[in-house]
């Protein structure tokens, strides 16, 4: 599907300072316009990336003029028909009619909204408001649920607030020891490695925990090649060593924390020999890691999706937080626990109300004063606000069922690739009465929709993002969207008008941000002191920032934690085995993750030739010894089977992975989709699915 771009429509300033469209590092970049339809990326000194960019960032501008861009709405009357071009009037009217008829027949909650962690703060905010005010449905959640929800829940429990990193990245070099758990930053967020290199140059130690040897672990002082799904055992084992070797900080524990006894009792059952047997990490390495952490004067513990995307994800993170607290390595300069967020606006996206249980400013939908504040900002009656709805997988699982969601509106998400047990989710998508998707390419999910709306890309509209540090950034507009394309804000305002809520929905980003500032005032994630002008002037502002005189909060917790009594909380964080462990039928572990040249479901990156050349297709990483056992050679097709489904992928032999574990990247579509295999077992608190571990069988595939 190719559409001509109209050169006249794309006049823009010649150089624009903006940010990369991809991950949560949100590297600063310059966009230079070569002619009126072509842009190139230039280096920009910004405090996060200091001028560096990865392969994805350098090629990002190619997306703007990509021939696959959608430039007109698409729709179909019947599922059997192909999508056809339509006018905006036709498409929006169809969406309105479908919403109204669904709600009349099945109730308000039969219409669901699914958002994304790449939407700007303004969009996330307006999407939440749209669901609650225009649709009045409780059913809204987003793909960030699949991202950092376990760390978010653990942060709230332990510290009373959830911000990915409680310190700026520039503090990392000052930590004597950093424990990085389940993270391959060298591939997923390359420019951030500068801070770790600097840390190392200053004599610091880096410990990487990963079932695979990666480009990140290659830079580490110590690599702990953990068995998938055993993170809490490791954390408790390190706490055990800390107790045994008197590495604890009793003054800190006494003055700034509560409930140490819970953590102590739990950890006391994790002596090194037992932890070795569970995690596969030798006692010697455990002792060394314990010593590096215990003897450091400053230390940080950082987690990513590895320990978080598990059915025990919250407990895993809490176990690492216990360790940080017991060592007295939190709430002090150059110390702390942090979660490295994944998606571009993974942080901001979870603060402004597209999460099933939340309202803007990290307010809670089940907390009467929070409801009252938001109802007042939105000019509605508090009793008209819905109650908390279902989490992402639960909502998707209910699609097309009795009492479930019958019509779904999707913004910036591609669940057909990214949801666990994707084959099942695909079936559920087909069972919907109506599916609308707003995207800039025809993603795998959009291809199944009844109505597809062409959306503006990151550089074609203004908006704020909140990066992994809690730094609120401004993406400036570098180009006009192609003719026929609208911004999500415009679409939401327009739809709201058609649903009888005209006037309540501004469609320009600055106006939405002004409203967001008022809505978050006094909340945990308080943005009320932040303005676009300040962001430009100060290279971003760290929330909370309650007034325009307030300098923002780069470092949190230096005086107190955000709990009612100011003390951080320990928890009894037990190791629980993964929901599915290898057995006779499915004898190996499967874990999934990202690779350098692709991003998330690949809707953007799989369209760029330079990136496809680096990473063209799905594969399974397998240890050569294990491959020999199965008679599999490098480059051969193999069939992977779990209790959820089967995927066909090419074997990539590599001694970098544990012998009992297979790794498949999750960016690729079709029969190579990693998520055909993954287990939707949910964490009981965060509702995070278990993407990172399940049991799998491998068979040679003769022909493919």
């Amino acid at each position: 599907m190719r559409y001509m771009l109209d050169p006249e429509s794309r006049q823009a300033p010649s150089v624009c300072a903006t940010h990369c469209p991809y991950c949560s590092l949100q590297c600063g970049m310059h966009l230079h316009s070569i002619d009126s339809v072509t842009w190139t990326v230039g280096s920009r000194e910004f405090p996060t990336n200091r001028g560096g960019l990865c392969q994805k960032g350098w090629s990002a501008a190619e997306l703007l003029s990509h021939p696959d861009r959608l430039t007109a709405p698409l729709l179909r009357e019947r599922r059997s028909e192909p999508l056809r071009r339509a006018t905006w009037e036709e498409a929006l009217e169809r969406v309105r009619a479908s919403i109204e008829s669904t709600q009349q027949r099945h109730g308000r909650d039969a219409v669901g909204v699914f958002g994304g962690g790449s939407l700007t703060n303004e969009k996330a905010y307006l999407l939440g408001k749209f669901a609650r005010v225009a649709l009045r449905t409780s059913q809204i959640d987003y793909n960030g649920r699949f991202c950092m929800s376990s760390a978010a829940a653990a942060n709230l429990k332990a510290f009373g607030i959830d911000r990915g990193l409680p310190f700026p990245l520039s503090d990392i070099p000052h930590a004597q020891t950093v424990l990085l758990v389940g993270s391959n930053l060298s591939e997923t967020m390359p420019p951030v490695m500068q801070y770790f290199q600097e840390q190392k140059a200053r004599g610091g130690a880096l410990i990487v925990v990963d079932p695979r040897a990666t480009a990140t672990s290659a830079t580490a002082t110590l690599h702990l090649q953990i068995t998938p799904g055993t993170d809490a055992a490791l954390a408790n084992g390190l706490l055990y060593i800390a107790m045994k070797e008197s590495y604890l900080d009793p003054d800190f524990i006494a003055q700034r924390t509560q409930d140490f006894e819970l953590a102590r009792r739990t950890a006391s059952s994790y002596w090194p020999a037992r932890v070795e047997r569970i995690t596969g990490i030798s006692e010697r390495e455990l002792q060394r890691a314990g010593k590096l952490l215990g003897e450091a004067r400053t230390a940080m513990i950082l987690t990513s999706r590895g320990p978080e995307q598990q059915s025990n994800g919250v407990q895993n993170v809490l176990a690492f937080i216990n360790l940080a607290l017991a060592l007295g390595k939190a709430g002090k300069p150059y110390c702390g626990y942090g979660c490295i967020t994944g998606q571009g606006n993974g942080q901001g996206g979870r603060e402004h109300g597209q999460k099933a249980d939340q309202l803007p400013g990290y307010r809670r939908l089940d907390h009467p004063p929070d409801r009252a504040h938001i109802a007042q900002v939105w000019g509605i009656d508090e009793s008209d606000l819905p109650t908390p709805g279902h989490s992402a997988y639960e909502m998707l699982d209910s699609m097309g069922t009795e009492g479930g969601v019958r019509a779904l509106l999707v913004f910036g998400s591609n669940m057909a690739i990214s949801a666990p047990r994707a084959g099942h989710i695909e079936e559920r998508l087909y069972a919907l009465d109506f599916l609308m998707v707003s995207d800039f390419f025809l993603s795998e999910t959009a291809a199944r929709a009844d109505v597809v709306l062409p959306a503006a890309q990151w550089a074609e509209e203004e908006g704020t993002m909140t990066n992994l540090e809690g730094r609120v950034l401004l993406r400036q507009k570098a180009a006009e969207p192609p003719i026929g394309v609208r911004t999500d804000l415009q679409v939401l305002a327009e739809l709201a008008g058609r649903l009888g809520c005209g006037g309540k929905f501004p469609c320009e980003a600055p106006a939405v941000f002004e409203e967001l500032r008022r809505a978050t005032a006094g909340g945990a994630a308080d943005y009320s002191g932040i303005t676009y002008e300040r962001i430009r002037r100060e290279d971003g502002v760290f929330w909370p920032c309650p007034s325009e005189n307030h300098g923002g909060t780069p470092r949190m917790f230096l005086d107190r934690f955000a709990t009612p009594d100011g003390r951080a909380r320990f928890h009894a964080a037990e190791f629980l085995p993964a929901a599915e462990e290898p057995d006779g039928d499915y004898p190996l572990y499967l874990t999934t993750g990202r690779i350098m040249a692709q991003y998330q479901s690949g809707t953007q990156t799989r369209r760029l030739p330079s990136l496809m050349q680096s990473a063209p297709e799905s594969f399974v990483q397998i240890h050569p010894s294990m491959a020999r056992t199965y008679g599999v050679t490098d480059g051969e097709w193999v069939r992977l089977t779990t209790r959820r489904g089967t995927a066909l992928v090419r074997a990539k032999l590599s001694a970098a992975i544990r012998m009992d574990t297979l790794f498949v990247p999750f960016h690729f579509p079709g029969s190579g989709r990693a998520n055909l295999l993954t287990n939707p077992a949910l964490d009981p608190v965060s509702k995070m699915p278990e993407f990172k571990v399940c049991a799998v069988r491998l068979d040679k595939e003769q022909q493919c």
Partner: protein
Amino acid sequence: MTENKRKLVVIGNGMAGARTVEEILARGGGSLFDITMFGDEPTGNYNRILLSNVLNGSYREDEIFLNPLEWYRQNGIRLLAGTRAAGILRRARLVYAENGTPEPYDKLIIATGSRPFLPTMEGIKMPDGKFKPGVFVFRTLEDCRGIAAYAQGKKSAAVIGGGLLGLEAARGLQNFGLEVNVVHLGGHLMPQQLDPSAGAILKTSMENLGVKVLLKKNTTAILGQDRVLGLRFSDGHTLECDMVVISAGIKANWEIAAGCGLPIERGILVDDQMRTDDRDIYAVGECAQHRGVTYGLVAPLWEQAKVLADYITERNRHAAYHGSKTATKLKVMGVEVASMGIVEPRDPEDEVVQFCEPKRGTYKKLIIREGRLVGGILLGDISKAAYLMQAFDRNTPLPEERLQLLFDIGDPPKQVTFEEMNAATQICNCNGVSKGTIVACVKNGKRSGKAVMDATRAGMGCGSCKAMVNDIVAWACGGETEEDASVHYYVPGVPLTKTELIRAIQERGLRSVSAVFDYLAGGKEDAASKPGLASLLKTLWHDEYEDELDARFINERIHANIQKDGTFSVVPQIPGGITNPAQLRRIADVAERYHVPLIKLTGGQRIDLLGLRKEDLPNVWRDLDMPSGYAYGKSYRTCKSCVGSDFCRFGLGDSISLALRIEREFQGIDSPHKMKLATAGCPRNCSEAMVKDLGAVAVEGGKWEIYIGGAAGSSVRKGDVLGTVNSENDVLLFMGRFIQYYRENAKYLERTHGFVRRLGIDKIRAVVMEDSEGIAERLDREIASSKAAYKDPWKTAWPEPGENRFSSLLPVLS
């Protein structure tokens, strides 16, 4: 609530009983049951498997408690500590205590554990039924304490039983300084975990470590009337010893179950839900026998506890226990042992993989059935234990190369030349650039590292591969890299060499860093270039230089030296290292007032106050009321001196007086890099003047030798003699002239030793001493003018109101 709860009674408060209750509570059992526990021991539950660590002193008693007494209170559990359950009345559904108190139950869990097995022999007990003094078993914390107390002052001990626990007891006893004999009935040590070959190797290893091992010895009597004196064996031999620890295995405590008619074999018989024959009575742990097996290890017991809890709380009525895989790993007196599953093949199809090196005490044996590990022994070298135990536990398919199971066979790290390196080898991870791409780029005419990086983006992510990219480019060019013009730039952000840059700055009268960027770099500011430009401008313009804070390094911005933890150090000026009581008092006051954690004399003979917080710096300076000692900048730092001619017997010149004059002359003079100076009163060089950036050494005849380009830091170099002069005045003159020449001609961040080496001492001597270029007079004028521009930064650097230079909330510290 309470009236609806059922009564759950647990007999036994050890590892099994307490763990089962924990699992029940974790499943919401607290709201289903009122829980009462009988416990023999007066304490809460401790971790029995760490007992030997208490015995050998590596743990304190309180460190091994899993459930202290307050845990029971907090969870609403009635613990009858020190109360023994005497019997069960099944029909009445009650348990009664030894004192007769009845305890009704709806559900009953028996977790009575096991006790040491005592082989038949004479003289174990005294007539009163207690152990003979010196006889011990090794089972409880109480036993541990008893052994430790009795061992005081004793010479020798015997351990009866060469199993796992017996050897651990032997280790503990040896730690008390006793001579230890292990007496074992069987033909080899640790029969549960080892085969005869491994047992024999372990025996040798133990004996090398000083423990005697007696095999196939059946002890028939413990000798001694009122205390242990020795052992007698069935073969008639005897052994003298002061104490004996019996560790001959365990015996399940099933008596209470047998007493109420529950079926018993070696333990209380249970089904897959841990139920006994009576649906309301469960048994768990070492007292239970499941599918013919009783367990004496902690892992199986925990698995049983989970199943029992799932079932009894109805959390999972399908929960079932299918038996456990047992594995142990321990260190017996420094010998590491790991064992799992069976120790001998049992099936003709079983495959045995073995390695034996008795001399080094190494033995490895694996038993493989249908490609899965069913048993294994590792002795001496257990580096593969973590992997093998997991493969055993999880039934993982094993790699076909069996050798790999026994040893880590990594390829030796190979140095690969660029020639040999595969073209597809990724050099830049961030941007996915391979060696082949770089080489192709060079072939296409990009013949410098920078040009290749610009074209391929290699090195433009995290930057860690830049050095390698440069090397590959050099190799690909066949050594004929086009020199990238930018390597000669004084700073990367302004495309001019130092000479060109100075000319341009002077011609246009550029007095600030931003002006340089505006006029010479097309307005494009480059953060990395700022400190270098600031330094140069200061050299050129002296007090006419327009200072811009953001152009300096953090140290120079805030006139203190940042430390690795982000605090700062402050060094006040103490010329010549000579101070007085008033100064010392002030310094001491400041140190106390601002909680300085460390006061240290520096190598340059100054006093360093370390660990100050940034926000305190201005106040520290005010209270010190001393000039800055310049311990932080790229500038003149200090001039160290020896005691000189006034006091020293060898002194030839007054090094103190010269040092004081030098410090006054050059204080605060900034330069391409730091300059450390010293004066020495004689060539004995006590103040190390010969290895300083500049040094003056007194020689016979009232003369001074001037040294330049010395170094004693990360590089070590003896300085070159610039010349020998006749007076202190001349020292100052030529040092000043050299400093100015260095300031004008060195690259930014080039120390004097690099500068002297680069230009050559002959050239420098000619310019400075002989005025070969006719610039001496100008150099002297410039340095004098710099000297006149000196201002003490601690007096002038007070923050403006609202300025946040000293606020600790700055997001970026350096």
